């Protein structure tokens, strides 16, 4: 039931059959499949981001003895769709004194980098766009790209709060990239492969999952990853109570929506990556592989949301201290231990 395994491949081979029968060159097939994949990813990201925004609002509401959106549809399920339509229809304001090029490009950079990660996330058995042999390296490289966009937004806005937000995000993301990568290295060391599919394939049974074999690595990863995507307790680049809205202070309408989408897309990304790396990816009994993937990913997302609505925000200097003085040594220790015992 609902098995979607290898659906990408099936579609591709079906198209290939059609194209060879009609005698259309290979180039057009590649172009078409690229566009199709792009459309699928965009559609998936939009739906998942819309759902996550709604989910976040409901989770936070129920943690705070509220209901959250209730008026639009069953438990307000249409709320974020309506919000998105509102944001699209709003006037596209570019303030007078901003650096126009940088200001306009910044949200696109952030959004595109959030999008590109989805090329090599295995959503299920065979459900991966492209199983790059450097998959995890690619993901780490692309996610870091976000910081360029945030810095551009902070600088281009010509606003002091934005600038502070941009600087904070640059410092933070660059710092947390190091323990993040080191924590992933432990997994790579055990799998002896950078391919996402290979990493999942090496954790068939529950006791093979890297959360069991690499508990320190998992903790370091999840902490650093939360910092990477700027969520509480590490949400200092957009700390509402300190920096108004950080780098996105001057943004409104669709440009703001792109930042917002990217934020929730990145949240899904880090949860998906932690599922893949540490929680056995698509492996699980009875249910189809993609369903297991989503169950695990949404559990991680729920935990991250739980953090957000419980913890206070850490201060910027403490954030740096935490990364360099605590997480980094811990990640190194984990790597050394892995190297010794593996």
């Amino acid at each position: 039931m609902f098995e979607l395994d290898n659906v990408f491949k099936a579609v591709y081979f079906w198209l290939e059959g059609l194209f060879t029968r009609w005698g259309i060159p290979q180039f057009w097939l590649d172009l078409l499949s690229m566009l199709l994949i792009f459309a699928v990813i965009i559609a998936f990201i939009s739906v998942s981001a819309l759902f996550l925004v709604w989910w976040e609002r409901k989770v936070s509401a129920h943690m705070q003895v509220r209901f959250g959106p209730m008026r639009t549809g069953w438990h307000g399920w249409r709320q974020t769709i309506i919000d998105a339509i509102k944001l699209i229809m709003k006037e596209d304001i570019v303030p007078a004194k901003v650096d126009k090029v940088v200001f306009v490009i910044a949200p696109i950079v952030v959004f595109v980098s959030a999008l590109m990660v989805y090329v090599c996330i295995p959503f299920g058995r065979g459900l991966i766009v492209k199983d790059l042999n450097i998959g995890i390296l690619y993901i780490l490289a692309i996610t870091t790209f976000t910081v360029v966009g945030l810095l551009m937004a902070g600088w281009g806005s010509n606003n002091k709060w934005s600038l502070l937000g941009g600087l904070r995000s640059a410092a933070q993301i660059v710092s947390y990239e190091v323990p993040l990568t080191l924590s992933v290295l432990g997994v790579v060391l055990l799998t002896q492969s950078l391919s996402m599919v290979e990493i999942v394939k090496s954790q068939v049974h529950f006791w093979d999952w890297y959360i069991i074999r690499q508990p320190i690595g998992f903790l370091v990863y999840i902490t650093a990853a939360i910092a990477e995507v700027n969520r509480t307790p590490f949400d200092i680049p957009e700390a509402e109570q300190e920096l108004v809205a950080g780098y996105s202070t001057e943004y409104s309408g669709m440009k703001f929506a792109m930042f917002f989408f990217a934020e929730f897309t990145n949240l899904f990304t880090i949860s998906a990556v932690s599922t893949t790396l540490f929680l056995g990816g698509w492996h699980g009994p009875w249910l189809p592989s993609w369903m297991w993937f989503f169950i695990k990913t949404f559990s991680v997302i729920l935990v991250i949301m739980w953090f957000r609505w419980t913890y206070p925000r850490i201060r910027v200097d403490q954030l740096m201290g935490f990364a360099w003085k605590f997480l980094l040594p811990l990640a190194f220790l984990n790597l050394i231990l892995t190297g010794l015992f593996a």
Partner: protein
Amino acid sequence: MKSQVRNRIERIDANTMILNMGPQHPSTHGVLRLILELDGETVIKATPDIGFLHTGIEKAMENKTYAQVIPLTDRMDYVASLSNNLAYLLSVEKLLDIQVPPKAQFIRVLLTELTRIASHLVWVGTHAHDIGAMSMLLYAFREREKLLDIFELCSGQRMMTSYFRIGGLAQDIPEGFESKVREVLGTFPDRINDYENLLTKNRIWLNRTVGVGKISAEDAIDGGVSGPILRGCGVSWDIRRSNPYSGYEKFEFDIPTGKDGDVYDRYLVRIEEMRQSLRIVGQALDGIPEGDFVARVPGVVLPPKEEVLSNIEALIFQFKLVVEGFSPPVGEVYHSIESPKGELGYYIISDGSNKPCRVRVRPPCFVNLSALPKMIEGGLIADVVAVIGSIDIVLGEIDR
């Protein structure tokens, strides 16, 4: 003020950045404006700029009779309006030399202590929200709602209560008052423990508050700082104890104090004050004496309604009192109380007419705010937010 601000701006050097924080900023608690001189994120100079909520309340008081002033006092510290009522009324009663009956005194104490809890709940919610623990705000407001229900039961108003009147209360406590207060007394200790579970030992909370926004006891006293901030420095000074008013000498309660005078100590002091207030409320509720709820001073206090409806003299008295008010003797009077924020005092000059010649309020928030630059200079922007929250300012009271 403006020239002072300009002087500061003129002295900038090229390595620093001037940041305008407020009056529209999520965590300046209303319309406080701060001009911050930053080196990176470190605050070198901080200049508060106030006056954006100036409503001329003190001036307006000069144009109203003594009884008409009471609703204006609600609108200064609008999260603790009953304390404002009480401070003004005690001053007027001192001017008129009226003895308030014990029942009214007990209820005044009870309600002002509930006000203290309500005010501290607003503080703990907004303060935690400023530091990033966003759920606390909703929890605190959930509890505050119970207290506002009690105020509404008594006065018909949730915030602008004006329940205390010259000589006592506007009316007797209503039915169902005691059970509502008992319910609060039953649930609140657990709720306060819940807050403490969320924050007190939380590693991030400690990192954000311990050692932040320090002020020494000497500096605090020199600056006229009062209330929980002063007690957070270790000075055990509480007007309820040092100059008891409204029968506070009859109640048992402790005065919590801190040691270091940092944000965390102020937090602990206020949390403990909520517990002590509950103690006082319990004692007051158990000991409400029998008697009248208002001192029946002819010419000052309205005659009872039944008499007004049946007796022509009482009707005339009521009419004259409402239209003309009363004229206290010539004199000057100052009385202060321990409001949730600190020493709240009213200085009233009477020229013998039916309206006060001058009313000057000694607002705790205004004086406490003047210590802000001392607390935040050298800290980070994030500390500024934490310190503003810990001072617990209400701009309505600062700007008046």
